[in-house]
């Protein structure tokens, strides 16, 4: 029987690895991720998880060990945050380029400078072109479920790409919530053992993994990664549905729509702000305002078709970002505009709030909706990017 326990997001991320029966774990501490690798080491030392635990010397080495272990033919796992992810940067590209289905929770933490340990998405956003798929979580249940789902998506032969499972620093990583723990037997049925046909290191059937390639070949490799990324859209939907069928939790696939049936405007969110936004939507609905939430769950591959469909049903879109691409706007805002260009003329507004881990309040989200409703009414964008809750800056 599935068991309900009160755990942190970090524990949920670690338990997802246990349920996925990972075989090689590479571990390196960084706040606020550290508890994940601590919990996994406890599972291993208590005999609950039969795996090789590698306490390595850096995040660069952690990702390198995962690449090598998965290239050899076993399921591998690591977790990181912020500077740790930045240190992994060049290895991330190799994992994706070699089509190695590694899954890594990333506890989203601000990147220095200034150095801080609280939530911002500028760590994973910097890796959005690395070839990794990325999903964002709203609560601890979703963290656990998405680690298991991520392996299923990553190891699908039409995809074979690594996945980051993103969870907001402290808001999820260190906060306890009730989480239903699925039965191991059910997870085993859902997620069979990793048995690669495309990349492995076996002396009796030798293969080169990571060959030096010339301009004659590299473009085709890039095209294959693009194909896999596109294929992931359908696979994400299938895995979501299969998971819902087996475990009773349906997350809606790449995007979850909340009270969108007759919404005039919507706010697109990533991460835990989605939870606050649900409440704000309910409040505004009670006040007679026709608003809805678009919770972006999978940011890579970017759900272009879904966003175009949503845009065809509303009069304006607001996009909340917890990271800035300086000089332009938040990455999610830019991707939304890019997806809609040539397909929709509705106003799209970008909102920045909660950078460096600052709380995003109900009033902040209300302001985002107010501005978006105003833009819908006027059918034009008066201010493209609005910084909310910034000292000395009028929103």
């Amino acid at each position, binding site marked *: 029987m599935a068991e309900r326990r009160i755990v942190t997001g970090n524990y949920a991320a670690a338990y997802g690895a246990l349920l996925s029966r990972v075989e090689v774990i590479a571990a390196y501490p960084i706040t606020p991720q550290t508890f994940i690798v601590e919990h996994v080491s406890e599972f291993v030392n208590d005999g609950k998880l039969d795996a090789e635990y590698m306490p390595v010397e850096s995040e*660069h080495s952690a990702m390198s060990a995962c690449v090598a272990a998965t290239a050899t033919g076993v399921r591998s796992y690591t977790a990181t945050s912020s500077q740790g992810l930045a240190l992994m940067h060049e290895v991330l590209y190799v994992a994706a380029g070699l089509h190695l289905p590694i899954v890594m929770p990333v506890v989203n933490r601000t990147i220095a400078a200034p150095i801080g340990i609280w939530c911002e998405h500028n760590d994973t956003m910097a890796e959005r072109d690395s070839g990794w798929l990325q999903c964002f979580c709203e609560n601890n249940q979703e963290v656990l479920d998405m680690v298991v789902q991520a392996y299923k998506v990553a190891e699908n032969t039409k995809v074979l790409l690594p996945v980051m499972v993103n969870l907001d620093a402290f808001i999820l990583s260190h906060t306890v919530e009730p989480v239903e723990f699925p039965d191991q037997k059910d997870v085993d049925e859902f997620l069979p053992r990793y048995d690669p046909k495309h990349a492995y290191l076996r002396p009796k059937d030798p293969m080169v993994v990571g060959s030096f390639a010339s301009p004659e070949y590299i473009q085709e490799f890039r095209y294959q990664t693009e194909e896999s990324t596109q294929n992931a859209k359908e696979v994400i939907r299938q895995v979501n549905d299969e998971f819902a069928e087996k475990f009773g939790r349906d997350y809606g696939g790449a995007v979850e729509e909340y009270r969108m049936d007759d919404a005039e405007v919507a706010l697109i969110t990533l991460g835990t702000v989605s939870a606050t936004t649900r409440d704000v939507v309910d409040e505004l609905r009670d006040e007679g305002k026709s608003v809805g939430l678009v919770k972006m769950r999978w940011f890579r591959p970017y759900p272009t078709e879904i966003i175009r469909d949503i845009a065809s049903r509303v009069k304006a879109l607001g996009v909340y970002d917890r990271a800035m691409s300086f000089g332009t706007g938040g990455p999610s805002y830019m991707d939304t505009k890019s997806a809609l260009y040539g397909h929709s003329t509705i106003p799209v507004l970008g909102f920045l709030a909660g950078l460096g881990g600052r709380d995003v309040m109900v009033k902040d989200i209300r302001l985002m909706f107010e501005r978006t409703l105003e833009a819908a009414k006027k059918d034009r964008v008066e201010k493209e990017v609005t910084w909310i809750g910034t000292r000395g800056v009028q929103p």
Partner: protein
Amino acid sequence: MKMKDLPEEDWFVNGHTACPGCGGATVVKIAMKVFGPDTITYFPANCLLVFGGTYPLNSFKVPYLHVLFENSAICAAGISRALKRLGKTDTSVVAFAGDGGTADIGIQALSGAAERNEDIIYVCYDNEAYMNTGIQRSGATPFGAWTTTTPVGSVEAGKGEYKKDIPRIMMAHDAPYVATATLGFIPDLLKKLEKAKNKKGCFRYLQIYAPCPPGWRMDASLGAKISKMVVDTGLWTLYEFEDGKMTINKKPKMTPVEEYTKLQGRFRHLTKENLAALQKYAEDKWRKDQALAEAYS
């Protein structure tokens, strides 16, 4: 293993594109004859990765993995841990890295793997500079040597610092097996490769002197000769460090270093003072290595 017992078969086969007289290619060819078919290899971004075959060509009959430059030891360790999960602990996992990838950018991962006693063989083929990128100074470049980043100018000429002693650093990790070798003493090299192969389940480090004729500005036929001379001068001590015990395998003749340097264009500019400094370095090194062997006897 004696030379006559070496198998005819190669696992690093002809057709690769290394330069004539390449010490690195020779090290790998001989090492693969000893390690044999039940081996998985790892190469960082080095000459070997390029001359070993560019896609879709390949000169290896065993699997190899390449990931990046600075992570040879951890990638080999990742392979080894995965093999343990798959129940294939007999397979040798061997990283072949150059001196730049070992002494400089790769030393963090190397140190970690040694400290955790990962079940891998790490072979550093030491050609004393970054050769793949075109002869730049590394931590393992010897004193005085010309490289493209220690050019012979009117104010400064050649490397001003001494060679970083990686085997000694590996000994400081109490690694179960550390050995030095050169292509000038093949029976000694074969013995060490074989020991490294058969000493399973632990971390093994070999540093093998590997002449690079274009990088050293030297005739391609001189590899074996120069590999003997480096030992005779005292610039390179042949030794083994096994389970805490250090054994020197050959007493140097202490031939003047000038006999060695004059055969290589990279040392052509050395002044009398430079040569005296290098001579003193060779004498000091031999004295220190003897003292170490005494301490670890």
